[in-house]
């Protein structure tokens, strides 16, 4: 059965070009970039090139790139690293809809005497910037707010937020793993201090990430050991991963237009047709400023896991914010923060596309969705209740 992959916010396929670029670094070019001999040293040169490619996509200086092992490491390093240099300040501001890589770290800080403010969002998943402004004070060490939400695709006005925060001398970090490669960035022109990205969300392999640290931003080193990454993140480099990420960033820059035109059109078509053919369905999150590849749709009276399993039978991969898919008993914290009624949150499905998706795949999903939803609604005790 053909796999139709609409779960690109979870992870992406490694691009063929990326794989090819990485291959020699497993087999023939296995030297340690820190070695004095030419055999190892030539790898060091390639890492420098990869760093330049990443910097090219982000619009920053290569010296501002620290390679890490994943987005979660970058987030942790940014938060702990920034707090370590301002020990007298004890307040951190974040949002209720962050990825667990940020939210869990912040909640843990509370047990270490920090005051953590979690900004709320409205029904559309948007922040109230007045609330943020009101919370900024002399005790605030760090503000960490995601660039775009992984579940809904809603993009926060990060430029404006970064300006508001940094103009008060407070460090600003953003988890941008869902954004890099999907919307253009120019960090040289932005006051953002720290930014996390993850390779496997943009067609590079799993196991490589980046923490961008703007020049002049103080941050404590987070892995001590050798001199790698300027001594801030020691440890022998994941050479194939870094080479792969460099290649992926170059490709992402080339495909940026495609992502925002063709992929966006496919997403819009998928969303539009599903809303048309499946009654009692609705989009979660603001649709005005949203990642071009993501849609999150709730289907009343049915449960997400059941939808996913029926989609799976057709080879269609998606994800859900329902309680049952996570093993927890409550639905997605993002949808709950938005005040999406439980009835709709349990039946939410996220489709996230990539440049590898085709119109045929979208048409196939459009054709299958109403069958699946109708079938589950025939089983549901609530459908009849609703009609009464």
């Amino acid at each position, binding site marked *: 059965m053909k796999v139709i992959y609409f779960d690109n916010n979870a992870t992406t396929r490694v691009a063929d070009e990326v794989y090819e670029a990485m291959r020699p670094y497993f087999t023939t070019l296995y030297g340690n970039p820190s070695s004095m001999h030419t055999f190892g040293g030539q790898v060091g040169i390639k890492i420098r090139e990869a760093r330049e490619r990443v910097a090219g996509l982000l619009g920053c200086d290569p010296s501002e790139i620290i390679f890490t092992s994943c987005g979660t490491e970058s987030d942790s390093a940014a938060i702990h690293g920034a707090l370590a240099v301002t020990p007298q300040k004890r307040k951190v501001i974040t949002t209720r809809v962050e990825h667990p890589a940020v939210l869990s770290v912040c909640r843990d800080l509370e047990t270490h005497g920090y005051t953590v403010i979690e900004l709320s969002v*409205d029904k559309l998943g948007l922040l109230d910037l007045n609330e943020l402004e009101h919370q900024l004070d002399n005790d605030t060490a760090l503000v960490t707010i995601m660039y775009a939400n992984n579940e809904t695709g809603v993009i926060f006005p990060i430029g404006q937020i970064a300006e508001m925060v940094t103009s008060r001398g407070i460090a600003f970090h953003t988890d941008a793993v869902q954004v890099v490669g999907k919307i253009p960035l120019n960090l040289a022109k932005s006051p953002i201090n720290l930014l996390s990205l993850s390779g496997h969300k943009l067609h590079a392999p799993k196991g490589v990430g980046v923490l961008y640290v703007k020049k002049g931003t103080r941050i404590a080193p987070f892995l001590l050991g050798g001199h790698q990454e300027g001594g801030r993140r020691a440890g022998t480099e994941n050479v194939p991963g870094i080479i792969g990420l460099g290649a992926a960033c170059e490709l992402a820059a080339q495909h940026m237009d495609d992502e925002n035109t063709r992929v966006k059109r496919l997403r819009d078509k998928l969303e539009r047709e599903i809303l048309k053919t499946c009654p009692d369905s609705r989009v979660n999150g603001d649709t005005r400023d949203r990642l071009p590849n993501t849609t999150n749709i709730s289907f009343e009276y049915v449960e997400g896991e059941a939808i996913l399993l029926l989609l799976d039978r057709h080879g269609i991969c998606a994800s859900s914010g329902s309680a049952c898919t996570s093993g927890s008993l409550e639905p997605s914290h993002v949808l709950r*923060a938005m005040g999406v009624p439980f009835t709709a949150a349990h039946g939410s499905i996220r489709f996230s596309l990539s440049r590898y998706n085709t119109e045929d795949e979208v048409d196939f999903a459009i054709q299958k969705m109403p069958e699946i939803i109708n079938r589950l609604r025939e089983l549901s005790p609530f459908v009849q209740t609703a009609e009464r």
Partner: protein
Amino acid sequence: MWEYTDKVRDHFFNPRNVGEIEDADGIGEVGSLACGDALRLTFKLDKNGRIVDAKFKTFGCASAIATSSVLTEMIKGKTLEEAMKVTNKDIADYLGGLPEQKMHCSVMGREALEAAIENYRGGGSKKHEIQGNIVCTCFGVTDTEIERVIRENNLVTVEQVTNYCKAGGGCGGCKGEIQKIIERIQGEKAREQELPPPRKDKRLTNIQKIQLIQQTINEQIRPALRAHGGNIELIDVAGDKVVIAFRGMCAQCKVSEFTMKDVVEAKLREFVSEGLYVEEDTESLEPGHEHEE
């Protein structure tokens, strides 16, 4: 990805006996949309008092649907006395097992069956009768139900109880109470399973007291509020008066029926000192940021 048995998959993809019997002898309803799963079971008896037909309608995940489907197959041909003996474990076994976190689906099946039989016998409410006192306010689970799943499935940890009947799976505020029920039933077997709560010392210096209050708030109270998007801050301690401020919101929380202040006070009395009382600091309230439903 859940690992479901072939039997679960079969009953999910090809559910048997879907629907509703028009002139049913018994109707049982359990669960709700908010809880994430719900089941309506209807059955019809023949002249000899045996279940001749059973149908279901279920909102829920694959295992909820599969559980409902096998239940209708299992009870057909049984007398009500025989059907009453079906336990949640029987249902799970019939399916070749369910993932631990999905065991509550089998309990829902058993409850719906009981509700339907009660409905037939009493002719009254179709809803599952609530017996005992509510322990888990998030999912509306009573001590009677918790005791029953512990006994029938020989459970020894709070986590298991949550997997079997959802109790403790929301804000987590009732976990201590569930632990006590387990200990009462299982005795020593349960006692080793959970970490002890912070120690309550007899005589505290002022600083120790404040530290213990802060620790109790951090460990016992805040996580529960957190689960519902709220937060709490310790403002001041003066003698036995503890001044706190609530942050964020608990808009959708069913616990809001009784004030959070009482919950905090109960926890502080339990873990710190009996004499403590809580006052809410109204001056430091956050300016109005309305959370819309």
